[in-house]
């Protein structure tokens, strides 16, 4: 089963590689990983998406806790939560008809065209994973030049929060 794990950790050199190293050393899989400092500059917030049985994910959470740089861990699967991912997608629009069609699809998906040339549109799109997948799929008749996805970020709904 897919789990979104939120990690609050010390914003220190090597902290990221401790987390990444733990996953490779113990044979856990990482579907996506995204990390940046928080409002408190000494802390980084990481969202890591993994797959595994409940036992494996329980073990992953415990092993993460065990890392000295990790302050808090939250398995968002146990909370009502929101998940978003951001994507940049660069599409070739060298045929006349393509400009309009790509613009229309982008509007339907509430994307923003953030860079334009005669031959290329670059679209920014935010949403959950399946929405981004659907958009990529919708553009399959066009020539996709580049796809950049941030990986999922997650946050629990309501009162639950991950703070020191």
């Amino acid at each position, binding site marked *: 089963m897919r789990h979104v794990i939120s990690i609050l*950790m*010390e914003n220190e*050199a*090597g902290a990221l*590689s*401790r987390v990444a*190293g*733990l996953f490779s*050393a113990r044979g856990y899989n990482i579907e996506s990983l995204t990390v940046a400092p928080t409002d408190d500059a000494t802390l980084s917030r990481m969202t890591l998406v993994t797959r595994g049985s409940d*036992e494996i994910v*329980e*073990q992953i959470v*415990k*092993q993460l*806790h*065990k890392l*000295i*740089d*990790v*302050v808090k861990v939250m398995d968002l699967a146990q909370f009502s939560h929101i998940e978003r991912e951001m994507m940049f997608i660069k599409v070739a629009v060298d045929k006349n008809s393509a400009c309009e069609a790509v613009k229309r699809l982008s509007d339907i998906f509430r994307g923003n065209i953030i860079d334009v040339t005669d031959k290329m549109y670059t679209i920014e799109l935010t949403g959950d994973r399946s929405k981004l997948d659907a958009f990529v799929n919708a553009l399959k008749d066009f020539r996709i030049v580049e796809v950049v996805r941030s990986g999922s970020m997650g946050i629990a709904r309501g009162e639950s929060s991950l703070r*020191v």
Partner: protein
Amino acid sequence: MELTGAEIFVECLKAEGVDTIFGYPGGAVLFIYDELYKQQDKVNHILVRHEQGAVHAAEGYAKATNKPGVALVTSGPGATNAVTGIADAYMDSVPLVVFTGQVPRHLIGNDAFQEVDIVGITRPCVKHNFLVTDVRDLASTIKKAFYIASTGRPGPVLVDIPKDITTARCEFHYPNEITMRSYNPTYKGNKRQVRRAIDLMLEAKRPVLYTGGGVVLSGAAHELTEFTRELGFPITETLMGLGAFPSMDKQFVGMLGMHGTYEANNAMHHADLVIAIGARFDDRVTGNIEKFCPYAKIIHVDIDPASISKNVKVDVPIVGDVKHVIIDLLEELRSREERPDASALADWWKQIGEWRKADCLKYNQDMNAEIRAQFVIEKFWELTSGDAYICSDVGQHQMWAAQYYRFNKPNRWINSGGLGTMGFGLPAAMGVQMAFPEETVACVTGDGSIQMCIQELATCTQYHLPIKILCLNNGYLGMVRQWQEFFYQKRYASSYMDALPDFVKLAEAYGHVGMRIEKPSDVEGALKESLIMKDRLVFMDFITMQENNVYPMVPAGAGHNEMILV
């Protein structure tokens, strides 16, 4: 007053009460060595002959004293040579602080002479590690290193110090205490779980205590013994746990696992309640996990939450320090009116008595034939009344030492359990002998293992360490050969140790006493003689039966009830 990094380093060791460190100098740590030279009356530095030896010696020191061991090595190859010892300490939860020199900061990442990313290399096998990037952080980093290494589930912590940090200056202030928001080990067990655990113990018909290295690390041998006697349950110990409960006590059913006793493994298999304390359900203990303890509920006490339900699903988890938790368990037990089920226990002991009749550790020493390794260990145990520090290497001799040296006290059995590091024994014995100069310290080894760190015989000469080396020489990598005999149709691929040195001459070349013992009737005399030579290292090369096997055995893939007896 401002101090240099090297001066701060030595001040920190003094503040931590470190009196002995094990190390090997090199370019990156020259300023530190210079300071150690100036303060040699404060911190005793033991010069080993290979960095692996430094770390194993620090481990031996730590395992015998429960204080953190300290090693100091240079950058590059000095650091990489230390990795085996660090990994060994990680697997066996040994409190260790290892200092490595590093190239100056401006050269880091430059492929400089003797540069390696040791923080990166050791990341998967340390409890934590640090690269010091500012001399003002040096003292607090060292404080953290000792704190992390010796609290919670202990483990090795590495501190990498660039050379220019050791000459940089700053005000020295050593923090008395340190708090880390990301590291707060749990010591007290949950009260409700403690009550549930006692409920299960009072209901149990066929209970067994299964205890491990955590009891020794926590210094809880006394509490465990009291608790076990109060319960009247049988107790088995893992390889790492030996000595926590007196081996000669009738409640002790022996070690469990791959080379455990028939009674211990059968008790585990048939138990309706397993009380695991400071043990981690290692694969060498459980055998086939599908067949492990099929009838039992499991209580698991461990300071490391990640050890709980890692390999085996647990019914009552108690996260906490073993000593604290046993004290709470004992208090809870004594507060109850009920007692453990005496009639069920009587039946259970009767059943265990039946298994004991198999006498699974029996062997026959024909006094006119070759020496059996088991006989050497048993004689040594008799002559030392079970009170010696036994430092073992890895292989058949390790299992025989575990089976035939009946430990009555904790911290006396010093071996490489998790990583299984050949070459551990001799340097570990040096660490123990440094900690306890007056005690009998023995290294039980084989003709394979001893050659992995044999250079340390020179260290023993330099520091007059009167270790008794019992080399159980069978001309083979015995455990490898045993597996080849059982599972590879006796194809002894590369397990025969051809071209063995003359160990007697070798010992003598280093300035020690060497003996070769070839007849069973000479075993006792040689051991006695070695014990009389209190101030000499004695290398006893016992020429033993070549194709001797460790029994009993749970073969790979089998359950505890499927042992090979002989």
